């Protein structure tokens, strides 16, 4: 049975970063809420028009760091209580000596949690995506700036949105699921 292809969205191509940022702002003003911008490098100016303001990666890092420190310290305390050794008559729970491993594990866990958070928040790995079928999309990793208005947006109408984008962009392509 052949199913009717459903639109994923409309992909518009802009010549430079300023045009993309302006287009994002006007799309937001026009009522579009489900939009995604693509650029060859991070553009912090895009965060405001796209409504990105969270710092969840830092939360992941902090959680990982605290967890790592607790694991590192807990591990050493447990190991020393489980098999007590007299090391040069130091106290059994020797805080200064335990700080190194505590710190190292805090850093390690924080980094692992950061990477985990990055992948979870970006919904990666995802080896295929409808956008990869659009030939214009590859330009986003070169020197092109793209804006995709998603079909799931309540405001989205294939013909109207296309016309709206065509007024602003260099080119507009339809992306199918």
């Amino acid at each position, binding site marked *: 049975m052949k199913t009717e292809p459903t639109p994923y969205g409309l992909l518009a191509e802009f010549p430079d970063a300023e045009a993309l940022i302006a287009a994002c702002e006007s799309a937001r003003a026009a009522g579009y809420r489900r939009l995604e911008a693509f650029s060859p490098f991070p553009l912090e100016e895009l965060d405001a028009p796209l409504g990105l303001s969270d710092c969840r*990666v830092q939360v992941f890092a902090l959680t990982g760091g605290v967890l790592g420190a607790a694991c590192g310290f807990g591990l050493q305390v447990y190991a*020393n209580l489980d098999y007590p050794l007299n090391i040069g008559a130091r106290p059994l729970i020797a805080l200064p000596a335990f700080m190194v491993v505590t710190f190292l594990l805090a850093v390690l866990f924080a980094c692992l949690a950061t990477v985990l958070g990055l992948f979870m928040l970006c919904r990666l*790995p995802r080896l*295929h995506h409808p956008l990869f079928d659009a030939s214009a999309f590859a330009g986003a990793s070169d020197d092109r700036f793209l804006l995709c208005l998603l079909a799931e947006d309540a405001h989205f109408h294939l013909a109207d949105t296309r016309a709206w984008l065509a007024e602003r962009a260099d080119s507009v392509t339809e992306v199918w699921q």
Partner: protein
Amino acid sequence: MADTPHFLPLDLPASAVTAQVMDIPLRFTQRRRWWMLLGACSTLLGLFVVAVIVLFTRGVGVWGSNTPVNWAFDILNYIWWLGIGHAGTFISALLLLMERPWRNSLNRLAELMTLMAVCCAGLYPIMHLGRPQYFYWIAPYPSTLGLWPQFKSPTAWDFFAVLSYLLVSVLFLYIGAIPDFAAARDRAKGRGQQLFYGILAMGWRNAATHWRYWHQAYRVIALLAVPLVFSVSSGYSFLLNLGLAAGWHSTVFPPYFVAGAVFSGFALVALLACGVRRLLMLDNLITTRHLDMLGRLILATGWLTAYGYLADVFMAFYSGEAQEREVTLARMIGPTAWSFWLAIICNVVILQALWWPWVRRHAGWLSLIALAVLVGMWCERYMLLVTPQTRDFMPSAWSDAYSPTFWEVALFIGTFGVFGVPFCLFLRYVPMVSAFEVKQALHRNREGA
């Protein structure tokens, strides 16, 4: 020469950067020279394998280290390689946080260098064990022996230090390279290349949401990596504090070791940068200004290391301890004095050539000085590590009998193969310059101009 913060021409188009950096792995042209390099490195790797087989079948007795010199090439080379690794993290993380855009041309190769240097270093502690098959006993796990690592000892800390450092370096390198893998995927024509870079890029889409989280993650890891460098290299200076030899207890050791580590690492980064820009014809991205900056970093960290020499010698005489004085004199006029004076000549005297800007900007001269620094730093480690063991507190235990054996030297030379073979593969398959960060720096600068 462009007078911009990124040292590149203001009008360099972004597409030219992508084309140049991505076409190296995608349409590799330097096949002949690359195969020659890989062949040479593989020979060294072969030597390493043979030396390890001999070591594992006949035991650590094939090395010259013996009482009183129990720590020789094994710990010496471990410290030397690990120190080299630190410069990569330093360039990538610290210069990122300090917003020095010129680092973007150098960070990828420096991170790859770090990765392989830490691997070479990490192998040594395993190989120097009498029963290397039980190396995992240093890891804390609920074993049937009922024992745990001795957490009050720097040797147990060291396991965690190397492991954390290796993993953090890998993560930092990989997270920093994902957008470039995606660029290579998008530019690839062949199915194999698309699959290879597609899997490495993990579906990266250059979306603004991706970038936001990526930017946060990258900075967080950089922020964590900087104190990690300091703790790892001061950590292995504690390994020496652990020993009961005079000359291993100077309070200047942790900063002295950090400075020496970064110093030797910058030297290898400079050497690799000169080699990479020549082999891959990246002269326009790794410019003479970059070499100039590396030269300045080598000079500055060299002086920090020289301060360590001075403080170490001064404290020995100032301490009033006869044994400390004896060890310091043995370092300077004893049978191993060659290592002390070679370190001084390479790390302090030859280094001063870097005051002249034309020397720093000349790839050939800079490489020679970098090579001298690497030799000098190796000698410094020898002087620091081996000499004190030949001068025990008890004169009856004094011995000048230590000399490295053939297999000891072969193993060390072989580690260059362990370093070189993966590095050759990186040269061939990994974008050696962080293209997207270069493009970002170019964009920001055009905006500001």
